[in-house]
């Protein structure tokens, strides 16, 4: 299960993710991003309550990163230890902005 809490302030958009980002739930985030990214120049993904990420989730993060590189910037905040390790193993820690 994945819960997404959205917070928009003009062109700044924050998604707080809670639960699991896996094969079953990744399409949900992908669809939300597709609907909301128009005109957004700063996207923040709050990962504090994200417990799990698989390659299906990484794929969605990578496509969001590619979109945001054209129109602004994307950053991830509050990334926990287990998810950090997944980013490191896959080289995602080098291509994502993690604060």
């Amino acid at each position: 299960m994945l819960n997404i809490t959205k917070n928009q302030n003009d062109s700044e958009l924050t998604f707080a993710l809670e639960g699991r980002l896996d094969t079953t739930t990744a399409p949900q985030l992908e669809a939300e991003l597709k609907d909301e990214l128009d005109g957004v120049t700063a996207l923040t993904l709050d990962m504090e309550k994200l417990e799990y990420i698989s390659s299906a989730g990484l794929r969605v993060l990578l496509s969001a990163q590619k979109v945001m590189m054209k129109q602004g910037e994307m950053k991830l905040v509050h990334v926990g230890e287990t998810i950090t390790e997944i980013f490191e193993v896959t080289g995602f820690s080098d291509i994502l902005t993690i604060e």
Partner: protein
Amino acid sequence: MKSELTIEAKTENLNAVLAFLEERLEKADCPVKAQMQLAVAAEEIFVNIAHYAYAPEIGSATVQLEVSESPITVTITFTDGGRPFDPTKKVDPDVTLPAEARDIGGLGIFMTKKLMDDVKYEYRDGKNVLTLKKQI
């Protein structure tokens, strides 16, 4: 400790497979971080079977979990009767490329190999047998 689950290989059953594994790993006092790594690896393998092994038909997959103690060693075996496919032969993606040059996909089996100590494929008695092993 040894347990087994046979289930239709379709992505709708992913949660059931992960719940089966997580429940038992929890009981075996497997640390949360290792539990997640094992689940990530299991997800990649199960989803692969669901997408490719029997497509366009649906077949079943068997997941076996074995946990031995001191040190805790977890072995997860996936067996399916679909078309022969060795995921370990897949070429690793270049994880040093910048975002714009990254391909979306190809990461699953690579992550599995990185997160597990051993990933072994065999084709035995007309079945794909993939074994994941990790010492905690």
